[in-house]
């Protein structure tokens, strides 16, 4: 008896805690994307049937983008796209089936607003790689139709409770789900950011396909109708006055919480309040601009059109109240062990049903509270970029350099995630501390690699060796010799060395005690957090590296005998 009860409760409780590991969202708020990636990767489920499969990958993809690694984000975001484009994943999986067995476990796809934002991040990743056709596809995918149940008698938007009450009133027990399935009006999306991104992608494609320009205009027009502050950006882009688009995330998005009887319903409550503070963008030598937000995630999550009513269906399917009442009656009235067993089973079944009726509050905890879009003109490489959200809880982040679009690309898109913390981190100053592959800027001590006591983390290639040799360092070494030293230290050099088979590993940079040498995108928070603050000196593991480090520290300066 006790074992049965324990098993039942254990089964239910096992399904209650899910989603990203504890502490993950805080690391992301803090800008510690490397540790956040590592924490998530260590706990990420590999089973496609696991309910957290997509949630883990969505989070990892967003963090990789924030860390300036769009190439690393690609495999997981491609998986996300694949799943989101799959129809009917949860069809034929009623809530009852999900409660009582492995078969028919609800597969988390996210609320509609989370799905739209996932498509948005996929579009951003593609745009960062100048894959404009794919960016267009992903942005268009975010513009799906919504289910509008209209307004309530009080003149406001219907809430989840309003819709549940309406479902009972119109259909009763039998017609409840029918109302949820058919009682809405399909409506065009009001996702202004999605329209804007589609406009950007089409405008970039117009370089080779002039017809795309008309499509871009149409998308920009719709974005401006929904969000008028986007108008000057759209005009500047269409008239070729700007060549760079910044997608800037700020604040932590709303939290999904339970409420109502037995916590059966769910809603999103703001973590950071919405407001109209603009984003101030200062480009060294080119002045300053201010830009309003393009997407308020709090507002999206609060509107029933952007929710999927799974909690409403689950609440209706749970028959906990009825079971509890009947179980207590049988147990109380029975003198026999059998009767007690039956009554207790009903009671436990009722408890199980009540617990299982509790709303699923899994959500993507690292969605931002708001997303800004800025369009600027970057005339020449090497200018410092400063982003500020003023006021309480705001932040100023400086990036050492931003470059104009490369090659023949008409536009560049950069994604920057502003940290959400009380203090301003030291790396937000924009003062470059390490020489790297993304810049020609020199810093003191960059005539030696970091692993040998210097401040250079450039890829060991012929050009890098030339710089070292010119400074009188490592003159008897070639690029191949230095790569061997890295390998002796078990350091993987991206992108020279083959990628690991497991694309979900998120190895840390050597600055963070990890074993990967990589360079994030220059215009990203990941770049600043790694290269704009001094790190603890490197401790060689191999004899060769230790010997080289020792001899370099004993080397007299070039001008002395």
């Amino acid at each position: 008896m006790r074992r049965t009860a324990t098993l039942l409760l254990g089964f239910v409780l096992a399904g209650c805690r899910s989603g990203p590991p504890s502490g993950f969202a805080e690391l992301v708020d803090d800008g510690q994307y490397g540790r956040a990636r590592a924490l998530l990767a260590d706990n990420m489920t590999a089973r496609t049937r696991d309910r957290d499969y997509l949630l883990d990958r969505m989070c990892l993809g967003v963090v990789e983008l924030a860390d300036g690694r769009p190439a690393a984000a690609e495999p997981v975001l491609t998986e996300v796209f694949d799943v989101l484009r799959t129809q009917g994943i949860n069809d034929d999986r009623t809530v009852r089936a999900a409660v009582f067995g492995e078969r028919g476990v609800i597969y988390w796809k996210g609320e509609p607003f989370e799905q739209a934002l996932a498509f948005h991040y996929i579009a951003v990743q593609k745009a960062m790689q100048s894959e404009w056709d794919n960016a267009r596809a992903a942005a268009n995918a975010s513009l799906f139709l919504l289910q509008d149940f209209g307004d309530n008698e009080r003149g406001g938007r219907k809430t989840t409770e309003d819709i549940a009450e309406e479902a009972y009133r119109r259909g009763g027990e039998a017609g409840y789900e029918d109302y949820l399935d058919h009682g809405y009006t399909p409506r065009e999306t009001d996702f202004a950011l999605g329209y804007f991104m589609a406009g950007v992608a089409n405008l970039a494609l117009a370089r080779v396909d002039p017809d795309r320009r008309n499509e871009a205009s149409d998308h920009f027009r719709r974005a401006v109708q929904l969000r008028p502050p986007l108008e000057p950006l759209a005009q500047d882009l269409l008239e070729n006055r700007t060549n760079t688009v910044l997608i800037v995330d700020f604040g932590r998005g709303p939290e999904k919480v339970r409420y109502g009887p037995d916590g059966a319903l769910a809603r999103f409550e703001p973590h950071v309040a919405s407001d109209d503070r603009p984003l101030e963008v200062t480009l060294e030598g080119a002045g300053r601009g201010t830009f309003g937000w393009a997407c308020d995630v709090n507002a999206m999550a609060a509107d029933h059109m952007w929710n999927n009513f799974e909690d409403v269906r689950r609440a209706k399917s749970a028959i906990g109240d009825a079971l509890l009442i009947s179980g207590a009656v049988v147990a109380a009235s029975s003198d026999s062990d059998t009767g007690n067993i039956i009554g207790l089973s009903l009671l436990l079944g009722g408890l199980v049903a009540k617990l299982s009726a509790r709303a699923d509050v899994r959500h993507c905890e690292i969605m931002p509270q708001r997303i800004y879009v800025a369009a600027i003109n970057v005339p020449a490489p090497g200018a410092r970029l400063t982003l500020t959200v003023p006021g309480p809880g705001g932040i100023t982040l400086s990036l050492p350099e931003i470059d104009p679009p490369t090659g023949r690309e008409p536009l560049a898109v950069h994604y920057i995630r502003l940290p959400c913390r009380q203090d301003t981190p030291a790396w937000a100053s924009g003062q470059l501390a390490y020489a790297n592959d993304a810049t020609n800027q020199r810093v003191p001590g960059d005539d030696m690699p970091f692993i040998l006591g210097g401040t250079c983390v450039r890829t060991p290639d012929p050009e890098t060796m030339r710089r070292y040799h010119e400074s009188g360092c490592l003159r008897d070494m070639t690029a191949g010799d230095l790569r061997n030293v890295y390998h002796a230290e078990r350091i993987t050099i991206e992108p020279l060395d083959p990628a690991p088979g497991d694309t979900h590993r998120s190895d840390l940079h050597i600055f963070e005690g990890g074993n990967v040498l990589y360079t994030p995108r220059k215009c990203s928070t990941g770049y600043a957090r790694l290269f704009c603050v001094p790190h603890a000196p490197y401790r060689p593991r191999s004899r060769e590296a230790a010997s080289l480090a020792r001899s370099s520290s004993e080397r007299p300066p070039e001008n002395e005998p």
Partner: protein
Amino acid sequence: MTPRTTPRGVSALARALPLVFFALLPGACNRESKSTRLAADDFSVMSSEMAARLRASYFLAHRGPGSPPITVAVSKVDHLTTDLISDGEKWYLMDSVVSSEAMRAMEQEKNIRFVIPAERLASLRRRVPEASEAGAERRPTHAMTALIRSVTRSAGRDRTDLYSCEFRITQLSDGEQVWSDRFEFKRTAFGRAYN
């Protein structure tokens, strides 16, 4: 002469044929299908079909081994679809067409050869220093391009994507389009898009 009348069954079949045709359009409804994304089979079928059509086209029909040589520079496929198609997949589709048996047989018969485009050649030369002189004799006379488009219809629980892939060969000397053809197919998926 007494005019022949069409038997009733034959005329009924003739009226039904268009319906049968659309029903049998490649990728027709499959109750099990959950996604309308392009699959590897779609690329294989497309490339085989286009190679066969190019071989039978007017552009090549009158050519022989002694015809003036034609060098066609191929490009990766472009797309304006609702799908994500990687660069590798774009190159795969074009490569599948030009490296098919039908096309390889044509090289001698029609005095035509296919070469990689200039940007891919430049990339090859950068990656492989020993290939710095590769492609020195390219001198393409034509360019072959392809574009995949899609139209989406989504209603209730179903979604249908109609894909259309158009191949073109353009003469570089004057920009004349000497051949084009289109391959269409649809994919349908069942179930709610989000739930």
